């Protein structure tokens, strides 16, 4: 699980992610349902479900690194990045995590790994290009806080709880409908059984979906917690705030890759598939505005305003303490 920074994206992307999340949920419910029908064994299902969770837990670093095309770097390859992380780990009295760089222009960073000892902190080349050193330090302090808070473990358990909730609903329904342990002989009244099966399916989807929402909410809370600890670790919340402003919203979208180098990839010499209008919409979408937007339910990260407000308050408190 990558606990990465929020790059405020376009609306299309949010919709896609939302749909992806929803279908993932449905997929999971269907999978469990199918397993239930064919295996008729709760134990086996639990073994598979937990097996998946354990994979997520134990291979989180490899999965995230693979997904981001991140490569681990040695101190010789990235002396500055290693230097910053060395300092932060000394400050926080933590074992030094492995350090990786992902070659992509999207400014982002993430931390992963099940425990502080097995952790990896990764920054993208786009992040390193856009921010100056104090800001990079602030972003890495945020990521190191994720490691210290054991957020990968927490979020795996949280999403696991959601999964179990969905599973339990199914089990409960089955035992109720078929008179306790009566599952297996549901071919007596096919139509009714199918109806019940539909209802069970629906309820488990809903339960899982709600737990998904809660997981997202928890994730946003953990982000704020990491912001807070990260800012306090370096003692300068304003640096993290300035880094956040630089990598999210408009400034984060301005590329650092050369026009002449980028040209072959974006088919510059041909009509872009989705021209002008769409881009303008995206540009306007950045403003956001307050209020409780639907999208915020599904975000793993709090809004930029929310994060900046917290950092501002911290800066204020630090100022008063002096």
């Amino acid at each position, binding site marked *: 699980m990558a606990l990465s920074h929020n790059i405020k994206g376009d609306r299309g992307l949010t919709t896609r992610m939302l749909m992806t999340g929803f279908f993932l949920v449905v997929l999971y419910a269907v999978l469990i349902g199918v397993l239930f029908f064919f295996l008729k064994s709760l134990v086996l299902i639990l073994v598979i479900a937990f097996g998946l969770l354990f994979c997520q837990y134990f291979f989180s670093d490899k999965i995230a690194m693979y997904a981001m095309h991140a490569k681990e770097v040695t101190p010789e390859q990235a002396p500055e990045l290693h230097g910053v992380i060395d300092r932060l780990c000394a400050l926080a009295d933590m074992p030094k995590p492995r350090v990786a760089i992902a070659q992509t222009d999207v400014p982002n960073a993430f931390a992963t790994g099940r425990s502080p000892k097995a952790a990896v902190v990764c920054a993208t080349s786009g992040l390193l290009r856009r921010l100056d050193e104090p800001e990079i330090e602030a972003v890495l302090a945020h990521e190191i806080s994720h490691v210290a808070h054991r957020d990968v473990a927490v979020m795996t358990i949280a999403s696991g709880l959601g999964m179990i909730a969905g599973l339990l609903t199914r089990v409960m329904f089955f035992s109720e409908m078929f008179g306790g342990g009566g599952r297996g002989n549901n071919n007596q009244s096919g139509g009714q059984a199918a109806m019940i099966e539909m209802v069970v399916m629906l309820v488990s989807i809903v339960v899982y979906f709600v737990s998904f929402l809660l997981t997202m909410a928890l994730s946003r809370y953990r982000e704020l917690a990491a912001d807070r600890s990260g800012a306090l670790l370096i003692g300068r919340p304003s640096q993290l705030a300035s880094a956040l402003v630089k990598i999210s919203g408009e400034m984060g979208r301005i590329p650092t890759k050369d026009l002449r180098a980028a*040209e072959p990839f974006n088919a510059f010499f041909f009509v872009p598939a989705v021209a002008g209008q769409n881009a303008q919409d995206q540009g306007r979408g950045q403003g956001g505005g307050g209020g409780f937007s639907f999208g915020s339910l599904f975000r793993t990260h709090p809004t930029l305003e929310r994060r900046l407000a917290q950092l501002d308050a911290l800066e204020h408190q630090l100022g008063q303490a002096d």
Partner: protein
Amino acid sequence: MGLFDTLLGRTKPVKANLDALFALPTAALTLQSAGGLVTSGHAGVCWKPPSGQGSEDLQTEISQLVGEGFTETKDSFGYGWLLLHEPALDDLVTHAHMANTTLTEAGWGPQLLCSVFGFVPGPDASDDAKPFSLVYLYKRGTFYPFAPTDAQKERRDTELELRIRTMLGVDLPVEPDLARWFPMWDLPVK
């Protein structure tokens, strides 16, 4: 792209849009009054040489077509540049447009990548003003500002660029999609 082009997977080369260049002198007045920014007297036209045999032919053809007043150079990406130097922006725009029209009429329009116009802080600019360039994308018909701070480390001052966009307002068609504000490191245009 039309439906059939999509279905058949065809794309047509985009024709270069040259006319928006003439909006530049007006916009430059705005830049001067709002930020004390004036032309550096340098501009460049960047074109992509076709691969293979045609490349050298084009090179000689272009030198013949555009005539005197241009310096030719190639950059590290293999793109060709026609560099101009005139003290007044009006002349720069006229010359750049002339070169573009000649190239387009000779059928090289799809090879045009961009024109770059240099700007520097004038006498009445504030102390923290920095030089920057306005890049004109032929295919999009739009401009965008590019302010490199450290070409070696490939850093750009995005804050300044967004400020310039605000200054320009409606005077110039500024590229609305920020993801297309591609930098051009080691610009031959000063």
